[in-house]
């Protein structure tokens, strides 16, 4: 048998000249992405893993065996029943937002596997597509077992198919980033910003928390996924290098746009989990500390390596680390029946911990919890609705998340008129992203516009049904709910 070096490039990097079609016809700019460059500009494309298909299959088979062995040992209902209810809520939140987003990423990778501009890129994207299929299947399999015990776990599959407000926001992001983007934008948005900047590190943090909590199943699943992500995320820097060399302004614009868009959903999913849904005695670091240690330093270093600047909204971003997920969590808690996982009202000890971790902003948030605790005290444990909102709330016309950008404190909401219609945004970055490509976003209806158009009900109980929730599924207070 030939040594690896003798056949390696034939299996991974094989480009050729076209004889009866032009390169522009084989790789149309509309699908392959902007800027369109001759292949000569891409021929040095490389990434550090340099995996062959045979190696991939061998490695992945070993990982699958490990995941299934752990599932057989500690992946039964009885094992999950032993976990803290807060942590189970964090699992439900991640379980819903992860697998079908990964499935959409299969499509994004497959587009790159055909229309990526170098053969090594296409090979790596092919393996990336197989990775993402695996990341769809594992959580669906693991959580499916739990549906018999707790119907909220059904949202692992149900979530992206629903008209739930969180699902609308997640789809608005994922559809654009994973399904619509050309391979260049996909590589910068997904591989560079989302995977290298956020999820690769998020998975390390989450698996550590799961380990400390004794959740071996989630720890193993996330670690196994992370090792795949670490590999195919390398597509991002390899593409970014060429784009920066030819159109630095475009590279900067894409990085700026996608860092903000990813940050918002990330801060909700991970911020909730780290600062509210991890039991207090197991919290090692706050979400803010995690962001500074794992995301900010590394991402800023990555940008500097490519000669790119920090996004123009960096000051606003740093401010939002201090308050955004707290504002969304308090808002979601007061509308907990609109989501598919339970939320916890922070105890006095938790509020003291949060004040210690967020000394500059917590005093603005804490009165909300004081008020909610007072409502519970007045209403009593049987009256979940006395501490629950009944009026529809506003949503950002870009990110589709609730209007929480800076209220309390300086309200960052911004209103504009465009083509005879009015739009509201939670923040200046959301407004500017909209204004850069209004044709892409203007016709999307947020929940409020659906209500006003008669496409969704305004009554809260009817709205819950519209969101796909029934009483056995909708979110409740972890400690106070009557079950």
């Amino acid at each position, binding site marked *: 048998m030939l040594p690896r070096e003798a056949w390696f490039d034939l299996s991974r990097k094989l480009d050729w000249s076209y004889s009866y079609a032009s390169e522009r016809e084989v790789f149309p700019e509309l699908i392959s992405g902007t800027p369109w460059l001759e292949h000569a500009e891409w021929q040095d494309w490389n990434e550090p893993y340099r995996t062959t298909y045979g190696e991939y299959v061998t490695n992945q088979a070993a990982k699958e065996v490990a995941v299934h062995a752990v599932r057989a040992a500690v992946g039964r209902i009885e094992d999950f029943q032993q976990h803290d209810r807060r942590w189970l809520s964090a699992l439900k939140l991640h379980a819903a937002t992860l697998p079908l987003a990964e499935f959409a990423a299969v499509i994004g990778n497959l587009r790159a596997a055909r229309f990526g501009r170098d053969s090594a890129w296409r090979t790596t994207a092919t393996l990336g597509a197989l990775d993402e299929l695996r990341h769809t299947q594992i959580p669906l399999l693991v959580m499916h077992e739990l549906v018999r015990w707790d119907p909220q776990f059904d949202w692992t599959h149900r979530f992206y198919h629903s008209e739930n407000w969180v699902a609308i926001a997640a789809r608005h992001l994922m559809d654009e980033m994973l399904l619509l983007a050309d391979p260049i934008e996909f590589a910068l948005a997904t591989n560079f910003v989302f995977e290298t900047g956020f999820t690769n590190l998020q998975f390390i943090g989450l698996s550590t928390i799961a380990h400390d909590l004794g959740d071996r199943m989630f720890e193993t699943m996330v670690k196994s996924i992370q090792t795949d992500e670490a590999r195919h995320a390398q597509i991002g820097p390899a593409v970014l290098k060429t784009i920066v060399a030819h159109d630095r302004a475009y590279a900067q614009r894409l990085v700026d746009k996608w860092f903000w868009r990813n940050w918002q959903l990330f801060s909700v999913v991970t911020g909730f989990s780290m600062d509210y849904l991890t039991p207090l005695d197991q919290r090692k670091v706050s979400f803010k500390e995690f962001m500074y240690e794992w995301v900010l330093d590394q991402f800023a270093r990555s940008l500097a390596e490519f000669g790119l600047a920090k996004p123009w909204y960096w000051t606003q971003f740093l401010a939002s680390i201090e308050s955004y997920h707290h504002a*969304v969590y308090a808002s979601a808690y*007061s509308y907990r029946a609109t989501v598919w996982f339970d939320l916890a009202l922070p105890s006095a000890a938790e509020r003291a911990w949060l004040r210690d971790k967020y000394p500059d902003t917590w005093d603005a948030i804490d009165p*909300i919890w004081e*008020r909610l605790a007072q409502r519970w005290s007045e209403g009593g444990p049987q009256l979940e609705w006395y501490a629950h909102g009944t*009026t529809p709330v*506003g949503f950002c016309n870009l990110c589709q998340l609730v209007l*929480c950008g800076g209220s309390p404190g300086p309200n960052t909401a911004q209103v504009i008129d465009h083509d005879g219609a*009015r739009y509201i945004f939670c923040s200046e970055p959301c407004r500017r992203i909209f204004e850069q490509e209004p044709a892409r976003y203007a016709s999307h209806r947020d929940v*409020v516009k659906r209500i006003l158009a008669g496409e969704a009900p305004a009554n809260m109980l009817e709205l819950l049904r519209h969101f796909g929730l029934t009483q056995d599924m909708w979110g409740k207070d972890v400690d106070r709910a009557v079950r």
Partner: protein
Amino acid sequence: MLVPLYGFVAGDTLGVLVLVHDHETIAELAARAQQAATVRVAPRARAYVVVRGARVEPWLSVSAAGLTALDRVDIIGEEA
């Protein structure tokens, strides 16, 4: 005519959808927004409304104040 507005009550964490009639007063609008946020923020007996950076007289009607659908209004509680 009903006018849907985005109401931000000072001290609250999110904007709420407030439906008012165009003939209702700004004071009634403030009360309705505070009621919508009452789970999170205790209503104040006295509150004023800010539109596009300017304080609006409480006796003005919604239409006289120039408010139209999906405008943003801020409701600020006054200390007793």
